[in-house]
């Protein structure tokens, strides 16, 4: 089905279109929003189709599978695409109120579409090399968006960000080369088939080579100890689009870990990589939240929380090393990703409203937002409690599922870290709440623009409530998507044809897989 390509073609054409409309700002931002909304409708339709009919594949130029470039939409891809486009639509409706004429003159909208192009591409690609190219496209878009407005601070932080990612890109190619020299293919489905039968020294070599890719993805995801670039870079991203950065960019790293380290690399010994991730996740959670506690700017607190939250998702991936709980752990991770993207993006957008109202991003200069704009305060309150994991919002359920899976696998120490982090998250959210939202409102009436910013943000906040209260369909979807990642039989057949034979984990380990959904349904 060639319509899969639309998810990258539409942002590409929109980037050109918005660049051509550069002299007419209103038309430009209207085109931006319409394109995002249209593509959102398409990806939700695609998710429904993939859920019913199995993975959809599009081979570029009609070349046969392991040789040509494959674009594959399976459940996990579609879930990520839906989140990416939903957040992009919300951001596209939010930014007309925040983007300055200078930012618009610096091609804000075309660069945002390039960013979107890279993100969607990385979710849809079925081959490792294209994953590298999509990373670079996404990064080039993100460099541009980050520098929009060109203050000194922005240029300088972007310099660090570019340097880190140049290093990441170089290591990515090293990893690709090493993996290619061992398995002789770059198509993910093909690698999965080859590695599921790999054994002996070649399996060990592949595990060693995959460490390079592990470092690249961990760098992109912001996992310990490769998170240091994140809390400095994200606060300088222009208001509004920082919700997209916070929600999606690190999650591209998480998605790559899921896709490559859980689905694609299946050789014996791959548990070693996942074990590293499990240990790193504990440090990521704790260090991230401690960093958040000692910050005094709203964006910095929220940026450190991205690091801390990435820890939970990496923890789920790490738990997959245990074959008995692999599917449940991946399902919990996918649900956590859904929850996190929605909540993190909404926190950044609502935090932006609080900044807009009080005219400052420093907590010590803010105050009284709850008096000036009660609606914004309610939005922040719900999103913050959801981030900390309070019922009845999605954060509670996401953490519950994750922690329960860890307990099934008897990983008690990681549960202790996760629960402690959750409490500290609540503490630092209370810090924002008491400094920015409580207190007396000091001077002039708030700028009226905030209502137009709050309307799109409230969609995301509503989503976290829905995810918490009506979770069963989403958990079912996450569980099915996890099965497709842990044992991608349908994926391999869709890409390579029905004669391809993938050795499933159960066949390899002679174990009956414990499924998440079978236990969870009453």
């Amino acid at each position, binding site marked *: 089905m060639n319509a899969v390509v639309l998810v990258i073609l539409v942002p590409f054409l929109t980037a050109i279109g918005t660049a051509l409309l550069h002299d007419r700002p209103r038309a430009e931002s209207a085109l931006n929003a319409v394109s995002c909304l249209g593509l959102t409708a398409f990806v939700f339709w695609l998710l429904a189709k993939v859920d019913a009919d199995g993975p959809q594949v599009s081979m570029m130029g009609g070349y046969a599978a392991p040789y040509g470039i494959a674009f594959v939409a399976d459940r996990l891809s579609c879930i990520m695409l839906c989140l990416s486009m939903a957040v992009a639509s919300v951001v596209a409706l939010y930014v007309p109120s*925040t983007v*300055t004429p*200078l*930012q618009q003159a610096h091609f804000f909208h075309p660069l945002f579409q390039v960013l979107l192009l890279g993100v969607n591409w990385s979710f849809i690609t079925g081959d490792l*090399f294209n994953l*590298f*190219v999509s990373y*670079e496209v996404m*990064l*080039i878009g993100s*460099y541009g968006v980050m520098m*929009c*407005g*060109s*203050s*000194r*601070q*922005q*240029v*300088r932080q*972007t*310099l660090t960000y*570019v*340097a880190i*990612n*140049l*290093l990441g*890109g*170089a290591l990515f*190619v*090293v990893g*690709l*080369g*090493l993996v*290619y*020299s061992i398995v002789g293919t*770059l198509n993910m489905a093909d690698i999965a088939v080859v590695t599921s039968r790999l054994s002996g020294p070649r399996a060990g070599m592949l595990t060693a080579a995959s460490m390079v890719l592990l470092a690249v993805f961990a760098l992109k995801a912001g996992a310990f100890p490769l998170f240091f670039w994140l809390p400095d870079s994200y*606060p*300088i*991203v*222009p*208001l509004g689009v*920082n919700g997209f950065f916070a929600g999606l960019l690190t999650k591209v790293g998480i998605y790559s870990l899921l896709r490559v380290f859980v689905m694609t690399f299946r050789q014996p010994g791959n548990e070693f990589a996942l074990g590293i991730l499990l240990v790193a996740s504990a440090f990521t959670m704790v260090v991230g939240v401690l960093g958040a506690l000692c910050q005094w*700017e709203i*964006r910095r607190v929220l940026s450190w929380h991205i690091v801390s939250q990435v820890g939970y998702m990496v923890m789920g991936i790490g738990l997959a090393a245990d074959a008995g709980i692999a599917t449940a752990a991946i399902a919990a991770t996918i649900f956590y990703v859904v929850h996190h993207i929605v909540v993190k993006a909404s926190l950044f957008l609502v935090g*932006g409203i609080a*900044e*807009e109202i009080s*005219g*400052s*991003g*420093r907590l010590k*200069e803010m105050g009284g937002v709850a008096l000036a704009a009660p609606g914004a305060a309610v939005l922040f309150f719900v999103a913050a409690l959801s981030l900390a994991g309070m019922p009845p919002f999605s954060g509670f359920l996401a953490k519950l599922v994750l922690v329960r899976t860890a307990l099934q696998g008897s990983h008690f120490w990681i549960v202790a870290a996760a629960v402690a982090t959750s409490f500290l998250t609540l503490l630092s959210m209370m810090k924002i709440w008491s400094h920015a939202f409580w207190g007396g409102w000091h001077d002039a009436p708030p700028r009226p623009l905030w209502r137009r910013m709050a309307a799109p943000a409230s969609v995301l906040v509503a989503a976290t409530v829905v995810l918490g209260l009506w979770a069963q369909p989403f958990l079912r979807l996450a569980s099915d998507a996890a099965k497709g990642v842990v044992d991608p039989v349908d994926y391999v057949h869709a890409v390579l044809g029905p004669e391809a034979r993938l050795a499933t984990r159960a066949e390899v380990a002679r174990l009956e897989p414990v499924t998440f959904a079978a236990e969870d349904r009453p």
Partner: protein
Amino acid sequence: MELPLAIAIALLFAGGAYSILRPNFFRIVVGFGLLSNAVNLLMILCGGFRSQAAAPFVADPHRVDGLMDPIPPDIILTAIVISFAVGALFLTLCYVVYREYGTDDPEALPVREPEDWAGGPARGAGLPRYEE
């Protein structure tokens, strides 16, 4: 042929890593250049480089042994284009930072810039220094 190539890759990696760690923007730029070339050479080696291999033009589809694998050069070509573009951007950024701060030492840059920060940098005045 593999050993000299491996030594060259090692030297380029070592030189690149050393240059990137120098406290000087220009050396960092050069370091990334060395690093990307090291990566490209590594890619050639990973593709099973042999000095006798023929170019992959297939005259007889039933006889393909003795041909060079075309995929690694393909990847290298893409990687060169990308590293060139991003390298150019990086060099520009280094120049802008040098002009703004008057130093080419990353360690000498101030840790925070509170004056740019009030109200969030992106909402800030959008400092006009950038265009001259």
